[in-house]
């Protein structure tokens, strides 16, 4: 099975070292942002920020608390972007990462429309733009390293490993301290499962996660695409048949003078 990552919201301290590590490893330029009234910054993921910590103030057990949530590509088990991409620029690698290849992409942005998490971003500020998103540090992983954000995390909120093992660990953490977590590992079943898994002390919807179906979003597309060849053949045969019948009828009509023996050969 593929690699995965486990994010534990009860352990995250919101230091955003992961954001910095990500920018450094991917050599992305800094961008000026404006104060939005929160120390959450930058305000959105973008082609220059593949990950960010989302801050939510929630009431938990009678106390007002800051709960954090790390956003980046979820590296789905059945990625919509991979099915969507017409030129195979997006690929699900065997070890879990969903990677993107500049040399194939032509910038149609269907991946951005398809993603149920709204992750892929686009370089809107250049005449020759590419799509950008977290690659699960596929380059680092190929060299035996952990992703930059996970390596840098000082509080143990992020853990890298085999997805199966992380999933088991997530459930055992919930079972060990049932009061501490909601009984839900986000990413276990969402849209068919994701490589990134999340634990939270409060319901996931309250800290900005979408409630998603457990069936892969690619299901209906795959079914529809399965009909393409049969429909192609069917329409071709049907149209040729109608043409043949109509042509014959016309030929018969023009020969009304002669007796119709049904054996008129048309050119």
């Amino acid at each position, binding site marked *: 099975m593929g690699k995965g990552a486990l994010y534990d919201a009860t352990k995250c301290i919101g230091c955003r070292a992961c954001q910095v590590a990500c920018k450094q490893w991917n050599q992305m330029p800094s961008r000026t942002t404006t104060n939005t009234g929160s120390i959450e910054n930058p*305000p*959105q*993921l*973008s082609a220059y920020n593949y990950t960010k910590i989302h801050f939510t103030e929630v009431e938990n057990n009678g106390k007002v608390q800051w709960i954090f949530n790390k956003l980046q590509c979820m590296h789905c088990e059945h990625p*919509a972007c*991979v*099915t*969507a*991409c*017409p*030129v*195979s*620029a997006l690929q699900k690698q065997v070890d879990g990462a969903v990677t993107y290849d500049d040399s*194939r*992409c*032509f*910038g*149609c*942005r*269907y991946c*951005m*429309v*398809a993603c*149920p998490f*709204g992750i*892929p971003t*686009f*370089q*809107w*500020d*250049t*005449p*020759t*733009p*590419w799509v950008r998103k977290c690659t699960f540090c596929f380059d680092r992983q190929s060299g035996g390293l952990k992703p930059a954000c996970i390596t840098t995390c000082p509080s143990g909120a992020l853990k890298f490993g085999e997805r199966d093992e992380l999933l088991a660990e997530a459930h055992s953490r919930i079972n060990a301290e049932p009061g501490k977590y909601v009984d839900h590992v986000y990413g276990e079943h969402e849209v068919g499962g994701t490589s990134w898994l999340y634990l939270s002390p409060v319901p996931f919807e309250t800290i*900005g996660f*979408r409630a*998603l*179906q457990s069936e892969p*979003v*690619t*299901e*209906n*597309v*795959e079914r*529809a*695409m399965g009909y*393409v060849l049969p*429909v*192609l053949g069917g*329409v*071709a045969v049907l*149209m*040729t048949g*109608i*043409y043949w019948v*109509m*042509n014959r*009828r*016309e030929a018969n009509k023009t020969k009304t003078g002669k007796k119709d023996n049904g054996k008129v050969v048309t050119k």
Partner: protein
Amino acid sequence: MEKTEKKYKFPIGLAVLSLLVITGLVPAIIRYVSGFGAMSNLNDGRGWGFWISFDLYCGVALAAGGFTLAAIVYVFKLEKYHSVARPAILTAFLGYLLVILALMVDLGQPWYIWHIFVTPNIHSPLFEVGICVVTYTVVLALEFSPALWEALKWNVPMKIIRSIQIPLVIAGICLSTLHQSSLGSMLLIDPTTVNQIWYSPILPILFYCSAIAVGPAMVIFESTLTGKALGHKLKHEVLEGLGKILPWILGAYLALKLGDLILRRDIGLIFTEYPMNILWWVEIIIGVVLPIILLSNKNFRKSDGRLFLGALFVVIGLILNRFNVSIVGMQIRPGYTYFPRWTEIALSIGLFADAMLVIYLANRLLPMGHQEEHAIETH
């Protein structure tokens, strides 16, 4: 008398069209100098905006007259419609050229579009749409080319095209069936973002059916307009015949749409899903119910002007539907808003003006089959 009047009437129209063409070039230039951010409101929350909804989704559907009329005339052998087949095929050809031109601006790296042949993903509905649009544009060019050979009096290419005409027409119908429906399949990947009032597993069938309906409607619409502008008159019975077909196709479409909502147990949404249900009702009443009622009335079909009105409703309904499914009814990422900037709209209008100019010139310079003597041409 009439001739001089025409000559004075047209330069103004031409001037307006040329102005629109130039205005449309401005956004394209800005995009190629400074990027999308400088000339569009597209953002990471809305990767596909006005262009995809209007140029691709509406453009391709509104060009459906090409394959429906080709089928009616060459496969079903309804010779009476021969005179409108050629203009319909020209409109379709221009429609597809516009789609391709629009993509030259809308795609991030259009010069790499050939990658679709090199590293194809055959599971992507957009791959299928891409391949079909390219191939079908070539097919349409060939289907229309006899008008050109006729004007140039070149007999050899004419003979070749005539000999493969039927296979070409059937290929065109197959390709259209595939990509008109696949435009619906493309949105199937968004079960969590497209509003349930529109999202349906049979979206490809609904798209195909509504494209078939808008084909003849577009022919009525366009023939009436070019007829008015260029001063030739089409036989009323031709337009009436097309108007008579429409209620049947629209009826089937309505039945599919309602049946689908009932079977999905989502029919209640058309009453509860405020405000999207309002848009749903507007789309259905203007584009489907009203034309069915009007065009199935024999007296209504008697006048060309009313036929035009009926067809116009169908066209508007289709545009509303494609916008509803592909943009309005699709959730935007949290924290973002989108409304098309004037430059986005100007680009699309500019392209549309290009097509109008070509249609005008074609009707002036090429035998378009309006005149009786061209209707005699044999094959």
